[in-house]
């Protein structure tokens, strides 16, 4: 297991360098000049432009610029935002909890609904529930996120007035962000109705963000279960006189979880992509919205630093998935 972990960590190195290069190059190949964008309607004089141009280091060769960025990254310095003048690290960490909270709720929703749904569909293969679930999974998977979000907003916020359209909590509540997670902070604040308000703000974005992973997890669980249910050891389990709940829920599911975990891991990567859209639609103050805003502002350090951190995050999640894999699959654990 330790050797396995070390070899995994080694593959991190080239991936990391690659991600640095891509994050650096991505924003620079987009047309648009950060100085002009920053100046806005008023424009900027020729001298001032030259001054800023040198100040940002744009006059130096691109390779040198990259080297500066790369050595900075290695020392833990991601630069400062052109716009807010705050370090990218600080901005990231003040916004990240909002994204994390949304993502955790979404993935939990997807797992807690998707796995049981997949199991029930597989056990009742070809029956009504199975067909209904698989068709909705197909729809959920292929539906454009923003369209689905708007639909939910129209129905639940517009027609029914049950949920707010944006933000993380009503403006009348104000308290310290002790953990950065609104659900926990609102509970800690002890203010009446704060928690309920946080839940109502969270629920639609979480549903929207959970939709695709939910569909993917349900489908993967179903197909993995179908495969496992035909195995000899399932017949053995039934021949022992075990109840169907135990055969399906313990003997079959444990084996079916092996491919499902991979899909959950991949979903986390997709989740971050989905979070960008979802946060923008619901004005959720997380890193997704932050990055979209900085792309519009051509805020190079924020975009490249944000991309890098998100990519690192996905890599770490994948590593964790591999570890979980080893825990559940004894054939890997003993290597």
């Amino acid at each position: 297991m330790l050797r396995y972990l070390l070899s995994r960590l080694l593959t991190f190195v080239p991936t990391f360098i690659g991600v640095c290069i891509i994050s650096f190059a991505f924003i620079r190949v987009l047309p648009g000049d950060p100085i002009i964008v920053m100046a806005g309607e008023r424009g900027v004089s020729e001298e001032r432009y030259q001054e800023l141009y040198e100040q940002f280091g744009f006059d130096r060769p691109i390779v040198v610029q990259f080297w500066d960025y790369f050595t900075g990254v290695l020392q833990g310095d991601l630069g400062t935002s052109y716009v807010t003048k705050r370090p990218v690290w600080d901005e990231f960490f003040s916004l990240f909890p909002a994204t994390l909270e949304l993502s955790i709720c979404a993935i939990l929703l997807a797992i807690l609904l998707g796995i049981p749904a997949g199991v029930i569909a597989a056990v009742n293969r070809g029956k009504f529930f199975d067909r209904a679930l698989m068709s909705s999974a197909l729809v959920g998977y292929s539906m454009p996120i923003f369209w689905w979000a708007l639909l939910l907003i129209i129905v639940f916020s517009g027609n029914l007035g049950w949920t707010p359209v944006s933000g993380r909590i009503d403006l009348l509540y104000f308290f310290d962000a002790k953990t950065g997670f609104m659900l926990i902070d609102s509970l800690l604040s002890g203010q009446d109705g704060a928690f309920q308000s946080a839940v109502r703000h969270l629920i639609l974005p979480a549903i929207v963000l959970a939709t695709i992973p939910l569909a993917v997890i349900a489908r993967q669980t179903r197909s993995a279960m179908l495969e496992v249910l035909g195995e000899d050891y399932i017949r053995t389990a039934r021949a022992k006189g075990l109840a169907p709940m135990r055969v399906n829920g313990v003997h079959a599911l444990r084996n079916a979880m092996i491919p499902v975990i991979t899909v959950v891991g991949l979903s986390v990567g997709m989740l971050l992509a989905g979070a960008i859209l979802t946060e923008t639609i619901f004005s959720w103050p997380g890193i997704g919205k932050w990055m979209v805003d900085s792309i519009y502002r051509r805020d190079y350090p924020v975009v490249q630093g944000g991309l890098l951190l998100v990519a690192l995050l996905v890599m770490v999640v994948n590593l964790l998935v591999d570890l979980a894999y080893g825990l559940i699959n004894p054939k890997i654990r003993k290597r």
Partner: protein
Amino acid sequence: MTLLNIKNLSVEFETAGGAFRAVDGVDIAVDENDILAIVGESGSGKSVSMLAMMGLLPWTATITADEMSFDGIDLRDLSAKQRRKVIGRDMSMIFQEPMSSLNPCFTVGFQIKETLRIHMDMDRAQRQKRAVELLELVGIPDPERRLKAFPHQMSGGMSQRVMIAMALACKPRLLIADEPTTALDVTIQAQILDLLTDLQKETGMALILITHDMGVVAETAQRVQVQYAGQKVEEQPVRDLFAHPHHPYTAALLDALPERATERHLPTIPGVVPGQYDRPQGCLFSPRCKFADDKCRAVSPPVQPRDLGLARCHYPVNAKEDAV
């Protein structure tokens, strides 16, 4: 009293190509202390008839029988829940592929103790003790350590021993062994068969041994029942069957044994067991039988009396003059 008594068991599968009768009017009777071998080529419905009895067939199967009783219980009108109290406890089964019959995600100990937990009134310590005892019983060295092993860490022979230990956990009255040695090396095969017969003697349970190897039958069983294309075609005590087979199919199977071959080339039975789409009229064996005539091809043969091995044949072989 007969421990297991099955009369006229039929199993029909609903398939894309219509109904398929995998088991066709089979009788099976076993007493305590009895070893019955069921022999037949692949596809003759041996496994399906046993799985039907255990209630392990998929819903596409329709099971009918005039009688199906075990230890005085009518298996036909048992609810699924009541049946689960019997199978795995009083009636248990081991399978052909030991390696894939154990769940790869759980330790050997977990899988053995699970059976004890659902059927027996035992606490943790008792279950651990019984599990160790069971592994010793089936001849697995260092049982405490083996209980913590996962199935992929064991050989096929070892896995089959574990399967046997699991099947014996609750001291069953009947053990069904469905080709328990087919997937194993020849040397291991003999060990597992010896183990099974020893355990049978020790416990006095009934044993149904499914096989397509007549050699295995000669060494282990007391009675043999030959199945062909879903039908029972003959039944006799082992010695009599080997001396005087009455059904041409049995005779052909015996002729195909290397140790009984009289010619230099081993005689084989031409053709294969009829499947869903090529079931013949009349006698099911007629396309492959060297004695077949027009009557065989048109009329289903009757079951002959017991002194002719209950052979399902118009012209049983080895019939004594006075018996006909």
